[in-house]
């Protein structure tokens, strides 16, 4: 049984605004019987104010598809078309207190129906560029199509590359075999050697630096192909670094040439500047954690040891050590020096 939130169940068993809307002047149809889910969204729009006066839906699909449709109609009623179009699929999922990763496509379908309905109201054609495949990485909900497209577009050749670019594989690492299979398929098309060969020390492409275990998380990791075999912690740290690049454009970009070690990379700063920068990093990551009902606070700075406390949902999160690695990575990028993040008390995790 899926781990559906109370709210998903509630909207499934008692869907709001279900059924036909006779006076609809904007209709969005998406999905198909053979795909297993389909949705018709009907809008009644006030032509003068472009406000959605009423919204109703009809859905063929699973529990979360019906709940997502119900949530969507509730969210957009009373909004102007522009406001409604600003609703993301994440908003729909949030409204329902989250959806299981395998079910996020249900919220995507809701958003597509909305775009289609607005286009229909305006007399436009809406074209769907969305394609989805089987879910590969369950930690970050990344599907096969996205991984394969990213591998092709960026000429990726290792699992680690894929994690850099898509986040897939950055969590529990259970999907690494699946990612390798996709890589091998694409590499074979390109006439290149399969993934495993990258891990052989004798491989001519292995020019990356060997990272001593004791400072594995203290060094920037090159994202170039041909890296030595990495530990799971490295991959996780890298995933967070990649994540930070995507979501926080002001973060310095990880250099994709040789690894850079600390002190020479950035000018020396005084203690106050340094402290402010550390605080800034903490503030920057907090919204991400809060979105997952977690949080982090700075406790103390003791030389290169930075003590923090993970709270809320982070406390028992199995990915907490990854979160720590990610913050540490950002911290080092910001400061240009090696620092170690030490979780205190309530965060029962080890880095």
């Amino acid at each position, binding site marked *: 049984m899926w781990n559906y939130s109370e709210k998903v169940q509630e909207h499934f068993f008692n869907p709001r605004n*279900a059924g036909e809307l006779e006076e609809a002047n904007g209709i969005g149809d998406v*999905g198909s019987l053979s*795909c297993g889910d389909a949705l018709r969204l009907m809008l009644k729009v006030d032509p003068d104010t472009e406000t959605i006066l009423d919204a109703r839906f009809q*859905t*063929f699909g*699973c529990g979360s*598809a019906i709940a997502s449709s119900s949530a969507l109609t509730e969210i957009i009623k009373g909004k102007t078309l522009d406001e409604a179009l600003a609703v993301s699929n994440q908003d729909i999922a949030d409204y329902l207190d989250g959806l299981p990763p*395998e079910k996020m496509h249900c919220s995507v379908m809701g958003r597509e129906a909305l775009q289609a309905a607005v286009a229909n109201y305006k007399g436009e054609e809406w074209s769907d560029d969305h394609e989805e495949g089987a*879910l590969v990485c369950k930690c970050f909900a990344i599907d096969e199509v996205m991984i394969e497209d990213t591998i092709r577009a960026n000429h990726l050749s290792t699992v680690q590359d894929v994690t850099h670019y898509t986040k897939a594989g950055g969590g529990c690492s259970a999907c690494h075999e699946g990612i390798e299979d996709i890589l091998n398929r694409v590499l074979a098309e390109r006439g290149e050697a399969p993934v495993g060969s990258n891990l052989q020390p004798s491989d001519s492409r292995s020019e990356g630096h060997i990272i001593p275990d004791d400072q594995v998380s203290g060094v920037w990791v090159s994202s170039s192909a041909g890296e030595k075999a990495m530990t799971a912690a490295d991959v996780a740290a890298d995933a967070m670094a990649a994540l930070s690049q995507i979501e926080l454009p002001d973060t310095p970009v990880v250099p994709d040439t040789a690894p850079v070690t600390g002190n020479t990379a950035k000018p020396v700063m005084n203690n106050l500047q340094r402290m402010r920068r550390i605080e800034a990093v903490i503030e920057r990551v907090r919204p991400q954690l809060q979105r997952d009902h977690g949080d982090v606070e700075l406790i103390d700075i003791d030389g290169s040891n930075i003590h923090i406390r993970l709270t809320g949902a982070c406390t028992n999160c199995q990915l907490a050590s990854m979160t720590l690695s990610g913050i540490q990575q950002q911290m080092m990028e910001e400061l240009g020096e090696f620092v170690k993040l030490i979780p205190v008390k309530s965060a029962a995790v080890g880095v």
Partner: protein
Amino acid sequence: METIYLDNNATTRVDPEVVETMLPYFTEQFGNPSSLHEYGNRVGLALKKARGQIQALLGAEYDTEIVFTSCGTESDSTAILSALKAQPQRREIITTQVEHPAVLALCEHLEKEGYTVHYLAVDGQGRLDLEQYQSLLSEQTAIVSVMWANNETGTFFPVLEMAEMAHARGVMFHTDAVQAVGKIPMDLKNSKIDMLSLSGHKLHGPKGIGVLYLRRGTRFRPLLRGGHQERGRRAGTENAASIVALGKAAELALQAMEHENTEVRRLRDKLEKGILSQVNYAFITGDPDNRLPNTSNIAFEYIEGESILLMLNKFGIAASSGSACTSGSLEPSHVMRAMGLPYTAAHGTVRFSLSRDTTEADIDRVIVVLPGIIDQLRTLSPYWKYNAPVKESFDPAYA
């Protein structure tokens, strides 16, 4: 609310008699059967008895043909990998498109390692083409692995006949009989089946215990090495409590065989008649005349299986579905796809699997509740209006 459990092909309730039988093996009877003292000896004798009980259920010639494993999946893997290792010159496997993932996923993996796997197709009712099968058997074939009964539809494959055909070509035959054991009588000693997998928790035994039946004289290579247990065929200290329990479960299954094929079958048929007489655009999948007595798989067109299950669950009824959404994959079950189920129905299949625990009242309640659920979901569906499909008027350009 009284709950109604109709998902016995997923797992069964452990019979209270079985629980009672196994409990002492966690406490006073804790010995290691390999030990040369009284503690070990007593457990060793109990294992011997369990082996005999399973031998009786399967109609095997010798009790030493019973090898205990941890589950059906391990038995399947052991059988197929053994056949490949024991006959390295043979590089082909024959199986079907509708096997359990325990066999299919292994075969797909073996393909990557260079083996050739032939997946026999099925027709709309889940039946094999034996001529195609005959044409694929060759000196290259290391093993045929074909399930006795399909877990989703209950449809039987003619494994006895297929084993004969394999032997006539000198090919080893394995059957995954996880769903069939305990539900239909078996007489392996008079068959050509070389290996057979079964799982304890499908026949009112505990989870974590399985059996590989290994006909005497069959060439064999163990999956697990490291000890003399199971005559060197499966190393690792025996799961004594579960083995004893499985022995008891086998004995009870043999006693209930008649009931399974009369009373359980009657209830299953009543359920189907009760539903299909009230719900239109619904039909039985698989081969209605040749299937397990306890299994009913019904396709409801124009609605989706997971939402049916969620509604049923709200009414305290447990069933399962081959819908994509229940598994997290985007495709409906491989069994439904292999049978070429119409796309209007492929996502709307629900499996009801009964057992000797199922009562008349259970079935009556499902017959009362289910039609309303189907009606409610169809009312929500854009493909349905006025008690009939309207798919002509709903055909999104963006699939």
